[in-house]
């Protein structure tokens, strides 16, 4: 079954195509990498899927529902969760409070419930937050201020916050950016475990070893168009992909 269907999606900025007629579908449980040279439109495509930018054309379906035109929070509540390219945690909040925001957005808690209601919702939110923190290994620093974490741990915090939403589809925008080789390897193993637990994952990444190492399928964008799609082995030898990355012979 297809969890996500991107159908002839386009996005123009002042007539310039950032994403041009891109189509693909992602099956439930898959681990897909999205690669492409700088300016290929990868992040724009993520923003279109998660509702952060309006589409100029095409449709996006998630879990069988058309989601284009919906607000980001409405899409998130359907089970899609994303991280951001340049690490957006809440610096003045504790690690636990950061994570709880992911849970409270999905579980929901009204002001009335917070003051006079029963503790059931709060307990659900707390349980989800602790589970997410345990998973990424940050439970021991739950009370620390997020701003005081090291860069690598902040990356995991952002993932924990997304996991507290208990998403079906997790979209990671350059998760390995700024990490060294050993940290990247550790992250790759972690992403694989998450996927093994049943979360469908789509990630944008510059680090080829990460993408080629863990993804079952790779989609290649160049200048806003999809130029390659298949297993890492197929994509690696695809002449169109090589041309986009290395330039044409007669250049």
């Amino acid at each position, binding site marked *: 079954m297809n969890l996500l269907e991107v159908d002839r999606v386009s996005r123009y900025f002042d007539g310039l195509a950032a994403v041009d007629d891109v189509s693909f579908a992602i099956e439930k449980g898959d681990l897909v990498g999205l690669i492409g040279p700088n300016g290929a439109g990868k992040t724009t495509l993520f923003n279109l899927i*998660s509702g*952060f*930018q309006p589409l100029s054309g095409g449709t996006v379906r998630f879990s069988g529902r058309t989601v284009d035109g919906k*607000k*980001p*929070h*409405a899409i*998130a*509540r359907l089970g899609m*969760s*994303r991280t*951001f390219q340049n690490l*957006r945690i*809440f*610096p*003045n*909040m504790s690690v636990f*409070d950061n994570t*709880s*925001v*992911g*849970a*409270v*957005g*999905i579980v929901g*808690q*009204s*002001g009335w*419930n*917070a*003051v006079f209601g029963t503790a059931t*919702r*709060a307990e659900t*939110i707390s349980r989800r937050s602790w589970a997410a923190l345990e998973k990424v290994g940050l439970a021991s620093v739950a009370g620390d201020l997020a701003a005081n974490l090291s860069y690598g741990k902040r990356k995991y915090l952002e993932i924990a*916050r997304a996991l507290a*939403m208990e998403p079906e589809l997790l979209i990671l925008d350059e998760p390995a950016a700024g990490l060294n080789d050993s940290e990247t390897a550790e992250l790759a193993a972690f992403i694989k475990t998450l996927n093994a637990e049943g979360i469908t994952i789509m990630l944008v990444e510059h680090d080829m070893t990460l993408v080629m190492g863990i993804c079952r399928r790779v989609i290649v964008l160049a200048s806003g168009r999809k130029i390659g799609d298949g297993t890492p082995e197929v994509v690696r030898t695809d002449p169109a992909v090589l041309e986009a990355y290395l330039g044409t012979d007669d250049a």
Partner: protein
Amino acid sequence: MSELSRRNLTWLCLLAIVFVVAPAFLAYFDQGYFYQLSTLALIFALLAASLHLVTGVSGLLHLGQAAFYGVGAYVAALLSINYEVPFSVGLPLAGLGAAAVAVLVALPTMRLVSIYFAVATLAIGQMIYLVLLNWVGLTEGPNGLVLSSGIEFFGYDVGARIGTYFVVAVIVLFSLWVIHRLTHSYYGNALRALREDDQCADAMGIDTVRLKVGIFAVSAFFAGIAGALWAYTTGYISPGDFNFANSILILAMVVVGGLGSLPGAVIGALLLILLPEALRGVGDFRNIMVGLTMFLVIVFVPKGLMGEVSALAFFRSRFASAWQGGGGGKVGWR
């Protein structure tokens, strides 16, 4: 466990001060001035706490809180004068009236970001103030309104000054408890997420516009309650009580106490009400002192007395995101 008992101890101390030490002090000196001052301090503690929800926790720079304080006061006074509505009914209606006005003005303004939102709240505050000042048929304009009846519960008049003090204290403390529960809850964490990065909060499944309108209304509700208390305790209100200078005074209390901290906001309120009284000699320089205190705190103690966020970074980010054009290239809009 020790965390819990320490929190209980703080509340116990607060209760003891408000219900034992302060009344004993008031009864011993038995001066009208001290009663007025303690009531004023309690009312402003509630006002600062109400703004703490919007500005300190949710990060919306709100420059018109005094207007909602005024709406509450006028709703209570007009109901009392024209329809002889008793205090126990007028008080919640004053809160609801202020909240209703807040929702009406919030719906069009909540899409504004950063400094543009702040300017809009400033304009709204001024508009409400001018309505109170110029709608003479309803509000008697600059002459103000005189209330005939005092604080009474179901026909029982609390009458005595100490009785009035206790009624105000109970209402303010209960309101502070509600605001405390809101601040330290997952709902409160969602509000903090708005302050830290509202686009990111949106990606977490939080309906940011609805949450902002909601907290704006809750905050106005408590400001309205404070307004009703002011109207009933002084027996006379005029538009001058609810002007821009008062909005800034309330903001200064929150900044001095520290953005995001409820005890901070309350202590800030007590400081900025009691200090100028203690230094009565400065007279007309009071307003300069408020501005100067806020300025000095922002520059030298950016986190205030006990804040979670640096006020300097806060104001800088509200301005900076405006320069960068807010969201999606449309200046000031999202």
